[in-house]
Structures are given as structure tokens and as C-alpha cells.
């Protein structure tokens, strides 16, 4: 259990090259003790590199890592007291399930009774109790992954448990239960959990803080709500949420309004300091509703299709050349192909150069 500080970390796999390619661009971040973090981003954006830097498998090209204000940058993996679970189950084939779970404790000279107690409690949580004495290699892939997970959880005093898409091989039902289990473990033991994933739902349901990455860059850190309502960049708006955020390329026409297809849309953003007039207006489909009795920020659209997705309806409509998507409740009547939509001013995000103003 520790507070983890990453300060000015950057990493390149070819640092001696005249033009090194950075897998991770410089960033700083603090992971508070006992919180749940998710690192979210598309494949190849540097998520795994970041984890490996924290666990010490990779030494960063620059920057320092602090555990509880103690510099561990040059400390070896085995001395960092960290747990890491990989995407695919890694088990010690030649040992039984019990020996597998006890291995991290054995390496650190825990007493036999303490080991027994911890292994049994972890096996209980992960439903592995009945397998404790069977050879680990005889288990199924998802049970093996549970063992990997168990080895990460068996030490109570770990600085953090790092998980690199640990639930990929596990079937959906068990996945759901395990995510809840992890949450419980986090609440019970106050272990810092860091969870890498490219699945936004997994990140949103699991973590109280999400770190969004793209191409080696940390683009935004925040709670699921913040990421959803005020994405820092158009990438986050696009990557998080389903459907992706509506984005309209347009121009600022006054200090607080934007012109889209000859309609003025008021925003709560001060647009007087723009470098160029080119901006993007972003708004979540969830916030766009069919106009009731509002008298501003209304757009006339041509409905193209309406999809009933069970618990909501998704309207896809044309606004001039733009496509606009709106999520409405199931019982909303959509009158005909011409509809007035209301875009709430307080929900509008304005982006200049793909960055939130």
C-alpha cells in the first residue's frame, strides 16, 4: 500500500537513436493510496509500458518513480513489492495451486501459518478452494488467470496491484463477478489497484479514476463523470461513450456562440481569446433532446433513422452536412422526418486544435 508518484516519466525503446521514438511522452501523475485507477486507451498507446515502468520491468528513459515519497527508480522489480497480473495467465506449471498462490509469500519468507491463512483467504475469494491441491497446469484457462490474480492479491502489503487487461480470457459472467470482487478487495484491504484496459465499460465500472492515453500521451485523467461530460480533447470525446461525442467543425461567431449550419448555438465557453476562428463543437448524444418549449439553441434536422436499442432510442439525423446523433428515452415519440433538437448550452464543449477551451 503506497502512494505512487510518477514524475516526468518518459520512455523510448531506442533512446540512443538520434530521433528516438517515444513509447511514452513525458508525463507526471500521482496514484493515491487505496484508489482504483484504470488506464484506458487503444492498443499500442503505451499502457503496458507504463505498467512495466511502475513494476520495474522497464527502466524509464527519464523521470523518477516514487513509492510513498521514496525514490524506487533504480530499485529492482523483486525489491519493489508490487504485484502485476498479465493479460494471459502465467502460472508455475510444476507447482500445485496452493504452491502457486503461496510462492510470493515463500519468496519473502513469510511464516507457514501466515502463508496458510493468506492463501486460504485468497482462494476463498477467488473460488479456488477446492483446487488448492491439484497441479496448476491441469486447470482451465480462466482458472489459471484466477491463480495469476490470486498471486497478486496474496500479499497484503503490496504497493499496488497492476493488472494488464487481466480479464481478457475470462467469460463475461465471471468477468462481471470478478470486477465486483476486485472492488470489494480494494475496499476491504485498501489496496491500490491499477487496471489497464481498452474497454471503456470495464474502465468506467471498475475505476474511480480513469487515465486516458493515446499514442504515448496521457490525454486526460479524471473520474468517469468528468471524462464523459467534459472530455479534454476530441480524442477522449470520441473514444469514450457510445455513441462517440457529436463533433461539429465550425466557426466562432461571437464571444460565446458558435455557428453550425447557419444556426447560432450558445455555449458557456468564453470564445474571445481564440487564435483562429476554427473550432469544433462537441456535445454528447445523451444531452441532445427533442425540443419541448425552449427558445434558443434549437436546430432543425432531418431524421435519417431511429434505432431502438432496448433501453433507449438512438436518432441519427442530418444537420446540413453534419450527422448528429441523439439518445432519447424509449417512449419518446419521434413525429416525422423533420425534428427540432435542443442543444443545451451548458453541455457544449468547444475545442480549438482538438483541445478543450
Amino acid at each position: 500500500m503506497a502512494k505512487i508518484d510518477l514524475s516526468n516519466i518518459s520512455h523510448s525503446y531506442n533512446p540512443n537513436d538520434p530521433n528516438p521514438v517515444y513509447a511514452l511522452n513525458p508525463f507526471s501523475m500521482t496514484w493515491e493510496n487505496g484508489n482504483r485507477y484504470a488506464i484506458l486507451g487503444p492498443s499500442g498507446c503505451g499502457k503496458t509500458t507504463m505498467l512495466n515502468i511502475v513494476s520495474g520491468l522497464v527502466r524509464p528513459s527519464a523521470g523518477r518513480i516514487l513509492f510513498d515519497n521514496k525514490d524506487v527508480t533504480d530499485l529492482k522489480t523483486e525489491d519493489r513489492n508490487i504485484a502485476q497480473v498479465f493479460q494471459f495467465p502465467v502460472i508455475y506449471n510444476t507447482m500445485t495451486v496452493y504452491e502457486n498462490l503461496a510462492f510470493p509469500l515463500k519468496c519473502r519468507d513469510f511464516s507457514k501459518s501466515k502463508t496458510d491463512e493468506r492463501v486460504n483467504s485468497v482462494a476463498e475469494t477467488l473460488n479456488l478452494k477446492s483446487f488448492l491441491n491439484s497441479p496448476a497446469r491441469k486447470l482451465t484457462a480462466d482458472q489459471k488467470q484466477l491463480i495469476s490474480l490470486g498471486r497478486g492479491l496474496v500479499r497484503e502489503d503490496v504497493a499496488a496491484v497492476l493488472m494488464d487487461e487481466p480479464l481478457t480470457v475470462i467469460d463475461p459472467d465471471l468477468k462481471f463477478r470478478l470486477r465486483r470482487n476486485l472492488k470489494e478487495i480494494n475496499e476491504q484491504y485498501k489496496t491500490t489497484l491499477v487496471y489497464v484496459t481498452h474497454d471503456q465499460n470495464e474502465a468506467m465500472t471498475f475505476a474511480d479514476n480513469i487515465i486516458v492515453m493515446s499514442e504515448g500521451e496521457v490525454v486526460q485523467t479524471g473520474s468517469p463523470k468528468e471524462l464523459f461530460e467534459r472530455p479534454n480533447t476530441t480524442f477522449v470525446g470520441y473514444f469514450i461513450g457510445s455513441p462517440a461525442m457529436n463533433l461539429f467543425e465550425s466557426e466562432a461567431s461571437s464571444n460565446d456562440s458558435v455557428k453550425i449550419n447557419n444556426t447560432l448555438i450558445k455555449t458557456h465557453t468564453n470564445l474571445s481569446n481564440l487564435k483562429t476562428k476554427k473550432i469544433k463543437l462537441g456535445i454528447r448524444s445523451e444531452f441532445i433532446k427533442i425540443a419541448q418549449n425552449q427558445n434558443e439553441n434549437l436546430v432543425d434536422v432531418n431524421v435519417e433513422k431511429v434505432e431502438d436499442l432496448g433501453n433507449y432510442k438512438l436518432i441519427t439525423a442530418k444537420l446540413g452536412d453534419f450527422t448528429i446523433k441523439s439518445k432519447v428515452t424509449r417512449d419518446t415519440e419521434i413525429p416525422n422526418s423533420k425534428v427540432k433538437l435542443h442543444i443545451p448550452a451548458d453541455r457544449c464543449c468547444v475545442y480549438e486544435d482538438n483541445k478543450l477551451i
Partner: protein
Amino acid sequence: MNKLYIFLKYFFIVVWTVFVVAPFLWALTTSFKDFQSVNGGVTYIPWVDFEPNLEGWKVLVKSPAKGGVDIIEPYFNSLFVTCTASLISIILGTLSAYALSRYTFKAGFVKNNDITFFFISQRIMPPIVLSIPFFLFLSSINLLDSLTGLIVVYIVLLMPIAVWIMVDFFNKVPREIDETALIDGCNPYQAFLKVVLPNSIPGLIVAGMFCIIFGWIDFFFAFILTFTEVQLLPVKIVALNSSVTPWWSLSASALVSVAPLIIVAFIVERYLSKGNLSGAIK
């Protein structure tokens, strides 16, 4: 169709079995024959075709003073040299293979794969190329005609096999295993000894088997690097030959010499067929 297939299958199995077993049976019967029964036409069945006797076997254990050839000493020499050289080769080979598989080496244009190939290339070279260098080398350090000298030479011959097999094997053992062991609190040595090595037992067995076979059957170096002090089994067997070829004792010694390999083959086969080669991550 199906019946034909089964018939053909068993037919070829029988043919192959006869092909493999017949020489052994032939050697076995010949070892119980005397001069008369070997040279007096084709004979197969003991007590019917010929009268079996134990002369061919007795000669092998009689001391030379009593007219025997005594292969017991060369036999144990061979066992000792083969086992020691194999063991050392496996230990050194496994360590080098692990390093070659896990760490990156670079000396100019030479990289890991080049080093691995260098090891293998030692076996591609015809052994005769090495005969004179080895001879001069051993004579310069006074190890000609000694067991130690032979062990040194055999390590040179066997280690490439061990490296070759083990590099391949370690490359198939996922790196995550090592990394997990480090995260679980092992230092790199413990990770190797406690986690990677136990996972590699099938590879070690295969490598060991090849080392033992190639060490045991070597005649060439045993022949040119020893004279009178020590003798290895293959050399001794060839030396049995004289103006009148003693087919009976040659057959008996051939059977004795092949016995350890058959035993090794049985043990290894049993071990490998247990499916221990399956990977640790899936």
C-alpha cells in the same frame, strides 16, 4: 477400403519391426555361436540349428592374461566419460542458452542469433577437422590418453547440442514467467532455478538424451586421443577384431554396448509422452 487400410498399416508396422529387430536377434543368436556354427552355413535356431555356448560372452569378462578381452574397464570408462561430459555440457549449455534466450548481447555485428549459430556450427564442421588441433591441445596440457582429456573434448562436442536444444526450449518458455517470478519477489537467479528450470525439465531431458547418445557412440575422438592407458568401449570393441573375426564376442559386446541407450530411450519416452511439454501460459 477401411480393411485394406488397416491391413496395410499393420503390414508396414510388421515389416518395419522386423527390419529393426532382426539385426538384434541376429546379433543375439550369433553371440551364442562358435566358429563352426557361424561359418557352417545359415543357422538361426539354438539347439536345433546349432548348439549354443557362452564362450562369446565369457571372453568379454575374462582378463587378457587368461585369453579374454575384458571390456568391463572400458565400459565403465565410457560410462564415466559420457555421463560426466554430458552433465557438464548440460549445466554449461543450459546456462548459456538461458542467457542467449533472455538477454541481449551485441559485439559489433555479432548478436544473440550469431552466437547461437556459432555453437551449432561446431557440429556442422566435419570432426576430422578438429582431430589435429585437439591432439596438439591435449598433448600440450598433458591430457592425451586420459579420461580428463576425453571429458574436455566431449564437452566441446556435446555443449553445442545442449545449447541448441535449450535455446529453442527457453524461447518457447514465455518471458512473462520470469517477469512474474521477479514480481513475486525472486531475484533473477531464484527465478531461473525455482521457476524457469522446473518448467524446462522436458527440454533438459531431451538435451541430456542427445548428449548421452552422441557421447556414448563416439569412436573417432576416443580412437585418436587414447592409446594404452585408457580405452573407451567403442575402441575396445573394434579392437576385438583379429585375423579370425570373433563374430560371437563382437555380437555380445555390441549388445552390451547398446543396452544403456535402450534403457535411456525407454525412460525418456515415458517421460516425454506424459505431455509435460505443454506450455505454462495459454
